[in-house]
């Protein structure tokens, strides 16, 4: 052991000298970006395309403050502890001006905590957890996507219009699922005190045992179902549920299922009539989205997913913040982000000063099958600013500074 420690020491020394820190940058503005590229490739690869497009556009327009943006991107492998290490590398070694990205809630929270400790700005792109802006909210952390609370609020509004009184829920057995269900239950019960919660299923992520789970839901005899499954589990649920008649005569209200990431793999088996949040890229005809769509398809010869919009908007927001701050000083960037308006493919959004949450909303509509694939119809855009708790509630949730 001792010998090896010695040898290891020498080896390490050599390795370390080889990667000793680069001299401080005066050229481009470096942005550190972390996401689960290998663990959650389905969402993160279109996301990367999105921010690549944004950065190319920004740099083509002369960059920010006369400097180009340079993204140093890293894969966290789906592990928060590795994300923290990478954050250390990006901040300590690469000298990035700020951190951005992350998909999984726990990774978002871990990087947020790192950012707070090390006084670095972190723009969380995708993690949905409410905690990142509320209970664990931080001076240094902003979040772009509409949270579980906001999306649950949008769906609860639709659900309240339904006649159904007996509801069952199914969601993956981790924080995203539990908080989606908790928020939805609370918000729907508030609007409709007559609603009863008659059953719940909590399959392990990626391991939904579809037959028994669907049968258990049927046995609960609900009139409607709230679902937060996605990805492979959603596919199993849809196929098995359709075959077994789980969805006949029942309305399903389902989070995220209208996102192309999750809807497209279902092809012609997409569940018609489900009320979902999602991204009907093929049918949004606002000018800002048309422009984005054309640019994206031109650049990648593929259609955008929701992740693409998130990646694109995150980096547009970062550029706007730096431009407004006039420098890459952390406190100045944070001050700039409070109340910062940003133009995104979904229209203008604002980063709320009160909790650092953006007002980006979501598209709510129904699933239909057209030409052998699932699409969203009868959809509308719910602006995120309308689906927030009261300012007093938010203030109470955020930790005292």
């Amino acid at each position, binding site marked *: *052991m001792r010998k090896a420690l010695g040898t290891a020491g020498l080896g390490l020394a050599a390795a370390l000298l080889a990667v000793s820190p680069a001299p401080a940058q005066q050229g481009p503005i470096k942005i550190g970006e972390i996401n689960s590229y290998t663990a959650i490739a389905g969402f993160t690869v279109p996301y990367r395309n999105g921010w690549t497009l944004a950065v190319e556009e920004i740099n083509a327009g002369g960059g920010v403050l006369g400097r180009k943006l340079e993204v140093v991107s890293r894969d966290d492998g789906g592990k928060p502890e590795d994300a923290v290490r990478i954050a250390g590398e990006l901040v300590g070694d690469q000298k990035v001006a700020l951190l951005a990205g992350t998909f999984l809630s726990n990774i978002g929270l871990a990087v947020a905590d790192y950012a707070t400790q090390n006084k670095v700005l972190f723009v969380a792109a995708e993690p949905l957890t409410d905690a990142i802006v509320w209970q664990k909210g931080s001076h240094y952390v902003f979040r772009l996507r509409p949270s579980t609370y906001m999306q649950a609020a949008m769906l609860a509004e639709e659900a309240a219009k339904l006649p159904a009184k007996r509801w069952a829920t199914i969601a993956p057995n981790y924080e995203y699922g539990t908080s989606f269900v908790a928020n939805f239950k609370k918000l729907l019960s508030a609007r409709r005190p007559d609603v009863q919660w008659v059953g719940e299923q909590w399959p392990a992520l*990626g391991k939904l045992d579809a037959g028994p789970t669907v049968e258990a839901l049927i046995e609960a005899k609900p009139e409607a179902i709230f679902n937060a499954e996605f990805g492979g589990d959603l596919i199993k649920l849809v196929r098995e549920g359709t075959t077994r008649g789980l969805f006949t005569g029942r309305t399903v209200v389902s989070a995220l299922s209208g996102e192309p990431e999750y809807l497209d793999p279902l092809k012609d088996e997409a569940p018609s009539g489900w009320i979902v949040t999602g991204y009907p890229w093929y049918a949004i005809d606002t000018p800002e989205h048309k422009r984005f769509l054309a640019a994206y398809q031109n650049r990648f010869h593929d259609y955008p997913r929701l992740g693409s919009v998130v990646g694109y908007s995150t980096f547009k927001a970062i550029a706007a913040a730096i431009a407004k701050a006039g420098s890459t000083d952390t406190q100045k960037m944070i001050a700039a982000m409070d109340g910062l308006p940003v133009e995104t493919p979904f229209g203008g959004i604002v980063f709320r000063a009160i909790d650092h949450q953006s007002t980006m909303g979501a598209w709510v509509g129904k699933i239909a099958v057209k030409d052998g694939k699932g699409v969203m119809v009868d959809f509308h855009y719910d602006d995120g600013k309308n689906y927030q708790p009261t300012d007093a509630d938010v203030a109470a949730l955020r930790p005292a500074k």
Partner: protein
Amino acid sequence: MDFVVIQLLNGLASASSLFLVACGLSIIFGVTRIVNFAHGSFYMLGAYIAYSLVELLPRTPLGFWGGVALAALAVGAIGGAVEIALLKRIYRAPELFQLLATFGVVLVVADLALKIWGAEELLAPRPPGLRGAVMILGRAFPQYDLLLIAVGPVVLAALWLLFHRTRWGALVRAATQDRDMVAALGVNQGRLFTGVFFLGSLLAGLGGALQLPREAANLQMDLSTIAEAFVITVVGGMGSIAGAYVAALLVAVLQAFGIVVFPKITLVLIFLVMAVVLAFRPYGLFGRAAAEPRAAGAEAQPLGAGDGRAWRWVVPGLALLAVLPPLAGGYAVSVVTEIVILALFAASLHFMMGPGGMPSFGHAAFFGLGAYGAALAARDVGAPMLLGLAVAPVAAALLALACGWFCVRLSGVYLAMLTLAVAQIVWSVAFQWTGITGGDNGILGVWPADWARGKTVFYLLTLLLCGGSLWLLRRIVFAPFGAALRGGRDAPRRAEASGIDLTAVRWTGFVIAALFAGLAGGLFAYSKGSVFPTYIAISRSIDALLMVLLGGIGTLAGPPVGAVVFVGLQEEISRYTDLWRLLLGLVIITLVVAFPEGIAGFAARWRRRAEGAT
């Protein structure tokens, strides 16, 4: 009543799925004693290849089933090729070492599948004629599930015929019972092993292909399958195919009814079943002692005298370690801090695996419990950092004290799997007891005390504690206790006959290993500032196992060397390419073939030879 019947049928269908993956693994293990981590990858390949073929071939029954059959054959061929090209070279390496090679295959396949088939889930059409449902007791039941219910027993029967009615099958059975005897009979062992690998992989591919109508092909299939396949195999008794079916039935039916009563039991049920079965039947339901491999394979490898000569290396080594990283900058310090902590974690695993002969697939239980112990002490009691760091090993040791009593009575892969079950149970507690542990969002804000907040100070503290621990572990290995532990591994009956209380010795060794793993976990928590269930997850246990094997199980230098190489490689490679899994996998495979005794083991032998020559 009708609900009960339907859930039973659902259980039977799921059991067939589980059985199909597990039986191939069981056959491979039974004959070759290889813990084949790549089995889940073969399963995934089966699904993907079948998808491509089914899309390609005409939408007829023949097209579908032909695609399934071809996919199974293709995966069988891939498995056979892996055996010939890779595993054949390392059969003489210590037991469990081949696991490292198969893990390299897992990494390579994961990235190749992503490159070839893309990230999106791929949903294949269902076979013509089996798309709908039949009414059973007034409930719609998928036709395909009915077919699947039959497939399990049919495959079981076919395998039984193969093993009991053919000469080749008889050889396989004989080899499962006594590998050496078959060799003595003059059978071409190489061909037999290749054949067995072909068959086992074919079954994995078939399992994946047959899953297509129920599930979209996806990139998570490999890892989500492999743990379950191992559990089924072990619960059934490794090498017992009928056992695998019974185990699959048991797990699937319990799952079907379990989720009705406790919907949140999904995370842990299968591991609870395994823990209970192994507590009562140390070789699984149908396993026999004969089907168990030798321990971790460190036997007959002398450790050396444990005299003071090694100081010549360690003093300058430690001095370099203390001085160099701080010079190289903040990030270098955090990477080396992590390596030093993981070296202790790996060394604690090595302590039980090498000298103790008790392999573990769940060592992260103790690492994680240490981390959570420290984090909870800090958050809920406001304990200062040093107290938190004292709580960490104690918490881990207490868990080891409780579960060790069950674990140490087992041996080989069964012991390893029971520790895995313990780790998964601890993991699910951390994951689901949100009120205390924060669930998967973990506990944040576990930062070092103010005086240790600086990266360099914390690093030096880590170096001191881990260096001291490594020194202590080494002392213990060469102390009377360590000698008794090694003696019990080498010759348990001799040790008992000499008056050594082997259960107590192994139990104590288990607790010591946990203690140091817990300390490593505590340090890790403070170095990251947070704890998450991932600290207890299977991948962390496997990482430690890989470090130990990569470094070499037969030498005390193995774990630190393994930690440096593994963490260093992963960190460096992942910085430069998204295909880091592919590269890392290839590097691991190369290292495995080049250094079948591990890197430090190779160095040690090289040095012995050099000394012998002078």
